[in-house]
């Protein structure tokens, strides 16, 4: 109970911290809107050639695009969330300060990242999505249930997203530098989350594989739940399984890192 309040405070701090970057937020809203427009016209051309690609009709493809733009910063698809700070703190030795606190490192960073995600969603994600809904035909549900399910799947997506990036960040304890890891995060994030093309549209074995990887929990699952393309319970189970597995791996790596590896600097 007491620690619940602690992590709520940490999450609130994460939220407010990102809220102070007003210019970056405005620039982000603009970028995601422009990108969304470009992607929508590309998709429409593609779906003209191949109707029902990935099982989507044109309105669903458009919805998918705007959802992707909405979740792009929220889920830190190409990185830039808590893991960026964490890597920097490990590299410079600032992590020492986090380690002597009577708090759990993983929960601490997750709480902060959840606060960030919520802000990025409200401050940066919602506007492009509304813009899309206003100017393009979208396939949005009118009932309450799919939206409720959508909220749950978003929450799980945020946890999976954090868990992947947390693992990546911890590697800096050994690598001493986050450059390569960040690039790997960015490429895998953009490609395997379905930022470029819905994972449903990936052909053959490649499609089978990408749809089973944890990144599928990030955009594909929420999109399919929202548009009623998949059963919500199955999606939850898929996301929760990856969340638990990745968080457990993070916990393991964290205990090895803090026990064996050394904090940098005086």
């Amino acid at each position, binding site marked *: 109970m*007491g620690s619940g*309040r*602690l992590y709520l*405070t*940490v999450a609130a*701090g994460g939220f*407010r*911290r990102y809220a*102070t970057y007003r210019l970056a937020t405005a620039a982000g809203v603009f970028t995601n809107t422009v990108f969304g427009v470009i992607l929508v016209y590309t998709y429409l051309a593609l779906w003209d050639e191949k109707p029902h690609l990935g099982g989507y009709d044109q309105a669903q493809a458009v919805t998918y695009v705007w959802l992707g733009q909405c979740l792009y910063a929220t889920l830190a698809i190409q990185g830039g969330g808590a893991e960026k700070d964490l890597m920097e703190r490990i590299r410079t*030795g*600032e992590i*020492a*300060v986090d*380690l*002597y*606190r*009577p*708090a759990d490192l993983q929960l601490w960073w997750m709480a902060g990242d959840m606060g960030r995600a919520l802000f990025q969603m409200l401050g940066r994600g919602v506007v492009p999505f509304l813009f899309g809904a206003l100017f393009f035909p979208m396939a949005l549900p009118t009932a309450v249930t799919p939206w409720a399910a959508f909220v749950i799947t978003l929450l799980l997506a945020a946890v999976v997203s954090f868990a992947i990036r947390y693992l990546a960040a911890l590697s800096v304890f050994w690598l001493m530098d986050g450059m390569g890891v960040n690039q790997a995060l960015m490429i895998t994030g953009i490609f395997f989350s379905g930022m470029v093309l819905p994972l449903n549209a990936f052909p053959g074995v490649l499609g089978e594989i990408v749809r089973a990887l944890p990144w599928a929990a990030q955009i594909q699952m929420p999109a399919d739940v929202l548009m009623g393309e998949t059963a919500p319970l199955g999606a939850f189970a898929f996301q929760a399984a990856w969340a638990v597995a990745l968080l457990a791996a993070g916990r393991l790596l964290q205990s090895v890192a*803090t*026990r064996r590896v*050394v*904090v940098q600097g*005086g």
Partner: protein
Amino acid sequence: MRDEDVFIELDGVEKVFEVRRKTGFMKRERRTVRAVDSISFRVARGEMVGYIGPNGAGKSTTIKMLTGILTPSGGRLRVAGIDPSRERTRLAHRIGVVFGQRTTLWWDLPLIDSYKLMHRMYRIPDARYRENLDRLVELLDLGDLLDVPVRQLSLGQRMRGDIAAALLHDPEVLYLDEPTIGLDVISKAKVRDFLRELNTERGTTVLLTTHDLQDIEQLCSRVMVIDHGRMMYDGPLAGLHEVGESERTLVVDLERELPPIEAPPARVVKVEGPRQWLAFPAAESAAVLVARIAAEYPLVDLSVREPDIEAVIAKMYAEQADRAERAIS
């Protein structure tokens, strides 16, 4: 010190780092650094101890072991009877840490937000939190800063903010790693006054590292000097003079220019017209020396200069480095 008073206890503590260095394409060399080399000391509850030594001596490494974020490679270490690296979280509620070069505060948010976080993190009862916050804000002069984002604070303001953050939960011991680094004279004085009050009024045990010997002179009755991970000296500050074979200086003004005064064991180190500077062992009596000179020379005026603790320590570091060099060659 009585056994029940011992709060911090180190027994032959060591920390060895293994460093891997790239020496060429695909070639790596392994080397070990003995950052702390068999250090033993005890600190009693309520003591205020200075922990000094040249760069790379092992001070920060010792403090990291005391907080539990580094595990010793050897030896035995206890703080309040607890092994820090095994029970880091339990111990965290009883210790406060300030790393002068790092901050525990939320960079982008107002100072007060970090304190609210400490409130939750250390589960400080509401009444006690408010009382402590009020006291610290007053003593450390933070009133106008609470709503300022930490990144906008000056170094001295931030340091005071960090010290307050480390003390909100009433820790029994406070470790300070270079708390006055980069501060101006006034900020240093504020921090020192505060630490003195903390130690005398509240009985908080304080262990502090610094490169500013004035911190030690003004605050600590006991000082520990380490170099290359080894304890060189542990005792009262005054005792350093004897160990360091420090010298006092007698400045005499004679009636006229004269050849250098002969008064062993004092020796003339400088002559400027009728004024002469004589160095003599700090332990010798100045009165005897003055009487002897006055009997033989036409003395007009004199003054005695106390040895500079800084010089003493510099000499100690240099001698240690010399010895190390000789050991290698």
